[in-house]
């Protein structure tokens, strides 16, 4: 497949997409979570009439406004890249991506332009009740905006509800609900938004801890911490539940990703969960140099089998089972999948040739064959494997996926403990005396962003080489454009996003230092 495009183009295009997606994601999760925390704070103000809660709500609303203004539209750059760098992918996915993104655009525009305006401009101008409803609707609208793009992403990880049209080379939606309500889409949405809720909880606690350390706005800070910690704690529990669901779905739909997450090379019954591990930089498996050996690992026996199958002795396939196949477990070898994929591509080629050369009867027969249930289930299902020349291309970067996954899980566990400690210390009236904890709270803010980045790295690097699971590998999705142009725009984006990030941090720190003094917006 490497003859189609050169590797530097693929790498720079991937690098550019990763750079813009990760920078974009620096802004999004805070918006997802802080809007709900604002809504809760304002609800308390609405119920109690206590002006302190109004002051608290207005301050965090200002922080939300800064983050929203800097982050808004940064995701559009990803859409630019689809058309330029990833045109074959964009064409192949057809309306699967277009429809959800159009809905997102319309929904985001109407919800956000209407209700955010009421949130910021409406204090003392609309009724308290209408203002509160607007704040809740902003929170719901912001999260629903995320829904559509995550539905599209879930389809790429598990393409369902669509049919490939060999005349147009596009996937067409045959069942909207299969796409929209696929278990992977539902789980991805819930897991992603709850991670945003956790981030917002940690963020508010961290900033509030700074106020307490500075002996400023202590009551404001304690109240903020209490709301953020309870919200964050409940979100963390939800995050763990959806994370567990995610792992099970990954095991079912993307077993190679699961094997990479756990560094599992040889499948067996009763597989343990690797709690922590370090790879050797030099020693590799004798069968495959992409499989680095562990120098050290802590493994909890049978837990992975139990988590995935609710059976402590169940079989979980490793990388080698997925590459070499496993007859006993009915796993096809990659060689078999590659040959089926090549057959699907050849049939498409013959169909196209017979059409262009005017052999209508032959074309009709080939089309019928291509669209038959048997061919779809046994050949087209592996279409993407036809582009693969070497089985090793099917293995993602295991150290990157493994470490990212474990960083995410370890940090996620810390956030849960952190929220419990925060609630305990506020309720016990001990918070102001625990200066070490307050310092740790500030330090936890960057950690929650690292956890977010790690999570997306697991999801996106773990599914390589696929852009659309089993159907389209990254190398076949990239446009044949000049790699130099991609390099230039990579650095342009790096510059623009870095300026935006500096602006965000500078404006936000200035406003935080000013504190919750006035109601200006």
């Amino acid at each position: 497949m490497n003859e189609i495009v050169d590797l530097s183009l693929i790498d720079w295009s991937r690098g550019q997409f990763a750079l813009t997606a990760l920078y974009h994601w620096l802004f999004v999760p805070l918006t997802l979570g802080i809007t709900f925390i604002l809504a809760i704070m304002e609800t308390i103000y609405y119920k109690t009439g206590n002006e302190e809660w109004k002051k608290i709500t207005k301050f965090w609303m200002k922080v939300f406004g800064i983050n929203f203004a800097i982050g808004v539209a940064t995701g559009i750059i990803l859409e630019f890249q689809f058309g330029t760098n990833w045109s074959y992918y964009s064409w192949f996915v057809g309306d699967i991506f277009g429809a959800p993104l159009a809905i997102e655009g319309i929904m985001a525009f109407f919800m956000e332009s209407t209700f955010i305006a009421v949130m910021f401009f409406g204090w003392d101008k609309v009724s308290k009740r209408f203002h509160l409803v607007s704040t809740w609707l902003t929170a719901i609208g912001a999260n629903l905006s995320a829904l559509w793009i995550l539905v599209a992403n879930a389809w790429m990880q598990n393409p369902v509800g669509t049919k490939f049209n060999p005349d147009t080379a596009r996937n067409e939606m045959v069942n909207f609900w299969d796409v929209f309500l696929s278990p992977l889409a539902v789980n991805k949405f819930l897991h992603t938004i709850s991670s945003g809720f956790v981030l917002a909880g940690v963020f508010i606690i961290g900033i509030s801890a700074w106020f307490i350390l500075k002996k400023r706005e202590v009551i404001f800070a304690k109240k903020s911490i209490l709301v953020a910690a309870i919200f964050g704690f409940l979100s963390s529990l939800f995050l763990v539940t959806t994370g567990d669901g995610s792992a099970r779905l990954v095991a079912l739909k993307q077993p190679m990703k699961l094997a990479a997450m756990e560094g599992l090379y040889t499948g067996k019954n009763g597989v343990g969960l690797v709690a922590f591990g370090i790879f050797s930089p030099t020693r590799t498996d004798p069968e495959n140099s992409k499989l680095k050996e562990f120098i050290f690992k802590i493994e909890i026996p049978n837990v992975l089998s139990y988590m995935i199958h609710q059976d402590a002795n169940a079989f979980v396939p490793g990388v080698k089972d997925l590459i070499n196949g496993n007859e006993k477990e009915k796993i096809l070898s990659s060689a078999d999948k590659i040959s089926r994929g090549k057959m699907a591509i050849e049939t498409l080629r013959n169909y196209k040739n017979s059409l262009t050369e005017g052999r209508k009867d032959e074309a009709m027969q080939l089309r019928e064959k291509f669209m038959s249930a048997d061919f779809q289930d046994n050949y087209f299902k592996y279409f993407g494997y036809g582009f693969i020349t070497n089985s090793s291309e099917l293995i993602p970067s295991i150290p990157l996926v493994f470490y990212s996954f474990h960083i995410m899980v370890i940090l996620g566990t810390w956030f849960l403990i952190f929220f419990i400690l925060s609630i305990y210390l506020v309720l016990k009236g001990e918070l102001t005396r625990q200066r070490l904890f307050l310092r740790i709270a500030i330090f936890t803010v960057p950690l929650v962003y690292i956890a977010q980045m790690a999570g997306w790295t697991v999801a996106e690097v773990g599914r390589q080489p696929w852009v659309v699971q089993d159907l389209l590998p990254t190398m076949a999705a990239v446009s044949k454009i000049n790699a130099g142009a991609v390099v230039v725009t990579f650095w342009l984006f790096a510059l623009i996003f870095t300026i935006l990030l500096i602006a965000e941090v500078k404006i936000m720190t200035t406003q935080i230092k000013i504190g919750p003094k006035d109601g200006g917006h």
Partner: protein
Amino acid sequence: MKKIIRFYIDGFKGMTLGRTLWAIILIKLFILFFVLKLFFFPDFLKKNFNTDKERSMHVIENFTKTK
């Protein structure tokens, strides 16, 4: 309707920090749509092919090149 327009006008007039944020949003949108999109991100298939049929044929050709 007048009340709604007045609401927005008063809101924008009363902005303090919001003015800076709006300036950032507008500069950002200008760079995105009038610099990046126009000069750096043409739609590859739209630019090189005139009809959807041609685009389809090109994509199929590209996919089926592999042996």
